[in-house]
């Protein structure tokens, strides 16, 4: 799966979790860019992404991911 494809599918997960169809995530997107992205939503998001891509983040990654770009890199490293 290419990076672009991951972004496309990831975008849908974000829109679903935050109930907002206007969300478009990119490499630099962080929790500061999305109003409802707090610690609870972060966990819900992580779990939804795990289900979407059929992979698992480890707890260290969950707490240290800096932006969506890093998230995508981890997803790619697991599914390819």
């Amino acid at each position, binding site marked *: 799966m290419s990076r672009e494809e991951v972004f496309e599918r990831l975008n849908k997960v974000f829109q679903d979790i935050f*109930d907002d169809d206007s969300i478009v995530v990119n490499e630099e997107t962080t929790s500061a860019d999305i109003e409802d992205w707090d610690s*609870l939503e972060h966990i*819900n998001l992580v779990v939804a992404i795990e289900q979407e891509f059929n992979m698992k983040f480890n707890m*260290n990654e*969950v707490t240290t991911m800096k932006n969506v770009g890093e998230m995508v890199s981890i997803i790619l490293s697991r599914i390819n």
Partner: protein
Amino acid sequence: MNLTSFVFLAFCFITLIIYFIVPKKIQWIILLLSSLVFLFYDNFSLFTVFQALLILLVSYFGGRLIEKYRDTKKETVILLCSIAIILGLLIYLKYSNLLIITYNHIITLLGMSKKVELVTRVSLIGISYYSLIMISYLIDIHRGACKAQKNILKCALFMYYFPILPSGPFVRYETMEKELYKKHKFDYDRMCSGLVRMCWGFFKILVISSRVGYFVDTVYGNMSKFKGFFAILAALFFPLQLYTNFSGSIDVIMGVSEILGINLPENFTGPFFSRTITEFWRNWHITLGAWLKDYIFYPLLKSNFMQKLNKVCKKKFGKNGKKIPLYLSMFVMWLAIGIWHGGAYTYIIGSGMIPFACIFFEDNLAPLAKKINKKLRIDEDGFWYHLYQSVRTYVLFSFAMIFFRASSIMQGLRLIKRMLVFNPWVLLDNKTLYTAGLDMRDFHVMILSVIVLFIVDYFSKKINVREKLFKQNIIVRWAAIYILLFSIIIFGCYGLGYDATSFIYQGF
């Protein structure tokens, strides 16, 4: 070893001299030796050596074995056993009495009379800190965030590093390994900066905390005499005493560590300017909050049980249903904070349950408050509204801290009852006001120093105050340093009936 004692200053002086004289390769060994001196200075016995060694050996071998048996069932077993041993020792040393009191209460309720006597256990300084630090070390190895230390002596230095023993902060191996074992050159500017930070810490402890402590102790010690506004003032003063005592000791040890060339994470960022209790706890004892978030709150939220509960609640109660697992996890986290603070119900209520209740109500009443503000056309971004929110947060925190400070829940409730006596004239009557441990001069010094504290804290949130100070011309720079130094010497409370050096957070 008390941080404001001459012994501590001499200890730091000798450590620093040897540390910068010896070949840089063995600097970390000097640090380990001085840390061991610090660790056993007050309590050297076979039992305390056993405590220190047990946690070290379990962490060291636990970490190595976790790596050896990576991705096997054994890995999880080793991790869980290591954590259980460390926690078991901590519970034995710190929480035996809490368990005994609970057991006795249950026995009484059941109508039986076989009560268990309370016990006294000697524990080493900083055990509540390095127990959790070593648990995070093991979990981080398991999570792949860091590699296990191969040298047991280096592992010992990470665990016993003396600046963090008195009152934290919580550190992570991942960041500390980059600092602790590398070669450190002496740097004059860094030494000046560290010394100023130490002095600022001494100012907070000796000039403010000890002075405020006189008042608080007097009122708490004689509640039948000091009631009404005295009780209210004592409740409002205690957070100041606690903050200046705790953050002051953090400043002192951060200053020492800075001179050594080892940076530690910040533990406070002007908590009294927070607008909500949630924000307050983000700025207060930051490293404890981060520890609990990473090792309790997040794993709990991500657990299968919570995720299933999340789905069920979302189905049943709609969008708001997802808050149920959140509050459940938060409750567990706040309970852990309360328990960590000490083996007494006063801590569980004061630093656990009341803050949790505040956050719960704050979160749920926020939409209503927003509506009211909109109707009344209150500017939520205006200065006065900010001030109101900060004062409200301070008052709520003070309320919670009544129980934290009290020797029992009953004493806390008694203080609240005493507050209801209406006697505002004591504030105007000098003869009465100055009978509660502080005379007029002390009151003036206290008010002035608290103003200085708030100004510095306010600017610290925006700029690096020490860096700014060192950029000033020589007159301004030295004038500020001399004023700080002489204020400590002249206005510091050094004793005579009051132990300025009993650090509140050292008890944990």
